């Protein structure tokens, strides 16, 4: 079986035999633990998971700072994706609270902090960067791994520079990728090397063959498309980090359905200003709401998906992670807070740690 047919077969199997309700990158799961990477005061890095009341169920130290996570239900394991330009994938067993596997990226590759599983969890897709000594700017990569042993079964272009978050649509075949457009290289630390020429885009790719299905750009090329989530109706919500002059106000959050035009979410200039040109995480619930965080703005926002209007904008310092919970969202902060987000904020718990950028929910 070649790599392409492997993917095709796996996709077909999962599409036909999926018994569990399909869960989007950001939709509600029925029950309900939450997980996030975090860093402690001694600058040691961990992955921790907790319940809706904020009680910590487990934590595992990892060797490199992680960014986002994915939950592998069939194995009861959490996959932690290294923060750019990290090279580690940590596979954590939730029951034993141990790292059961630590994978390195291929030589001259690094991760961008995000990954997504297909529906039957047979395949893992990650955004990655291949770099050379000449610091050549090139499109990023989507690497596909078999989750049995995490061997690489396929690799294809992300169709843009600096791919970041990605998600699968409900067909379990179409991958949507936020290509941030920013060229970076490990020897240049996290320096942005192409701000004058950056070309971010939102790309849809057929995972069966790696072919581009659609590519969309925003009018202002300094809007780096970084994070996204997908609702159950396949509306993709994506958030941007503006790399131009701070006073050039643009909408930072957009909605898109494949085959249609991109539509911005609706807020006033003063409201957009409060996001400080920076969006971190997005999440939707089953009440047609979208939650979006901005650590630079110190705000968490709730949007009406039907009208695309801002419903509430709440001050929460250093917030980043957000995930759907029962009847509300839960947000995390770099101050260690776990906070319920509805019409107002409600404290859940606080730890003397720094929760990292993203929060996931999962059923054990």
């Amino acid at each position, binding site marked *: 079986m070649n790599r392409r047919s492997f993917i095709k077969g796996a996709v077909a199997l999962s599409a036909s035999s999926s018994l569990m309700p399909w869960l989007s990158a950001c939709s509600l799961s029925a029950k309900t633990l939450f997980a996030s990477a975090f*860093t402690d*005061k*001694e*600058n040691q890095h961990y992955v921790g998971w907790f319940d809706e009341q*904020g009680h*910590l169920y487990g934590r595992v130290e990892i060797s490199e700072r992680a*960014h986002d996570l994915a939950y592998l239900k069939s194995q009861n394991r959490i996959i932690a994706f290294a*923060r*750019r330009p990290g090279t580690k994938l940590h596979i954590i067993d939730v029951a034993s609270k141990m790292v059961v596997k630590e994978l390195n990226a291929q030589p001259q590759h690094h991760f961008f*902090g995000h990954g997504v599983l297909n529906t039957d969890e047979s395949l893992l897709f990650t955004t990655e960067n291949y770099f050379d000594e000449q610091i050549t700017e090139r499109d990023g990569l989507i690497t596909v791994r078999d989750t049995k042993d995490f061997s690489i079964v396929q690799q294809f272009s992300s169709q843009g520079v600096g791919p*970041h978050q990605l998600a699968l649509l409900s067909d379990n075949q179409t991958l949507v990728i936020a290509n941030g457009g920013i060229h970076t290289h490990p020897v240049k630390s*996290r320096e942005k090397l192409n701000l004058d020429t950056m070309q971010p885009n939102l790309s849809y790719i057929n995972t069966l063959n790696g072919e581009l299905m659609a590519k969309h750009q925003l009018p202002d090329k300094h809007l780096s498309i*970084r994070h996204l989530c997908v609702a159950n109706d396949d509306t993709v919500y994506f958030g941007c980090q503006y790399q131009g*002059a*701070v*006073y050039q106000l643009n909408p930072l959050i957009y909605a898109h359905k494949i085959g249609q035009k991109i539509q911005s979410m609706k807020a006033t200039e003063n409201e957009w*200003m*409060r996001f*400080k040109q920076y969006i*971190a995480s997005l999440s939707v619930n089953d009440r047609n709401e979208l939650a979006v965080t901005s*650590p*630079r703005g*110190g705000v968490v926002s709730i949007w009406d998906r039907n009208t695309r209007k801002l419903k509430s904008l709440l*001050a*929460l*310092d*250093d*917030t*980043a992670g957000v995930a759907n919970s029962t009847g509300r969202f839960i947000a995390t*902060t*770099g*101050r260690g*807070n776990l*906070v319920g987000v509805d019409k107002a*904020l409600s*404290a*859940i*718990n*606080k*730890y*003397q*740690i*720094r*929760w*990292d*950028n993203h929060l996931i929910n999962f059923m054990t």
Partner: protein
Amino acid sequence: MKTINTLMPTTFAVVLSLLLSGCGGGGPNEQTSTTSPTTDQGNGSTDSSSKLTEAQALEKITSVLVDDVILPSYQLMLTQSEALQNTTSEVCEKSGLKEADLISLQTAWNEANSAWQVARTIKFGPISDTYIYSQIQYMPIEATKLTNDVESILIEGETFADGFPSSKHQLQGLPAFEYIVFNQDEDNAFLLSKNQGQRCAYLNVIANNTVTLMNEVVTQWQGEHGEQFRAGTGSYSGHKGAIEKYLTFWFEYLEIINDEKLKATLDTSLPGNPELLESPFAHVSVKNIKTNITALEQQFNGASEFGFDDLLGELHDREDVKNEISFHFKAVHSSLDALENVTLADLIATETGRAKLNAVRTSITELRALMASDFVQVTDLAPGFNTNDGD
């Protein structure tokens, strides 16, 4: 509207009469009970004895930051902006401007710029909410782009009667003023220019704008915003949250010095990138950095009041960390002194100068690393973890 006190302190406030003796603050537990994200845990009361609890110490620091650090810094900038406004108005009312008039403008700009180099290190709250800091000083920007942008609005018929003809921030603040009064270009040098009256009108608009903006900042800090910071309410999650917000930008400014002011101008090799000098026309880029570091150190020390140094020594009984930080500040000052009076433009253009600049960068990196490790671990006060993440 509050009346702005224009009698600005030339130094920070007098020494606190009651020195604080050490007390056991107790390390924080890994997990605390449920806390509100917008309210403070401390009772805020002050013991009649000289000992402070940790909560009282944090409350004290927020007050010191408002009264002795933030407001004096902003007020000084307002005062110098008003002086710039007055000088510009007086000079531009004259006809037949002479060298002495130009020097008056340059001196007023230098003083306003020095005050700004202190104020700009405090980039949160009103000065940040509507990007006022960017209007007063848009950076980084290439000198050629700034030149072209400024000259492009000095077109025939533009009187600036309606303010700025462009929303670009680089045209509204100190860098544009600097270009007008310091550039030596034959056609566009201030005293030689054919459109001197128009340039004067432009300078007046910039100076007026700076006063208006700083007035807004000072008014808000003197009023509700200052009270919220002091109490740890509003957008601040308690006294600790308020202090950590402040520290986020204290740390950020060290990175701005290292990355934007030094690394970007050094570039990867000779001849460097003089286009990205902070003050390419007035040639005070090194002085700016010295002012920044002095300001950050004074802020760390709470001016002469109860500061982070006292928090380490008096509350946490960690004179060793306090002394180590002081030692690292001295190392930064020494590395800056080694630059002598050479301009940044000249320093980046020679191997010797570049080595000295890299020594400055190293000393700042080491100071920042010490703060990010020992200071954070001892005090449990940390800059925003996600705020400056960049992913």
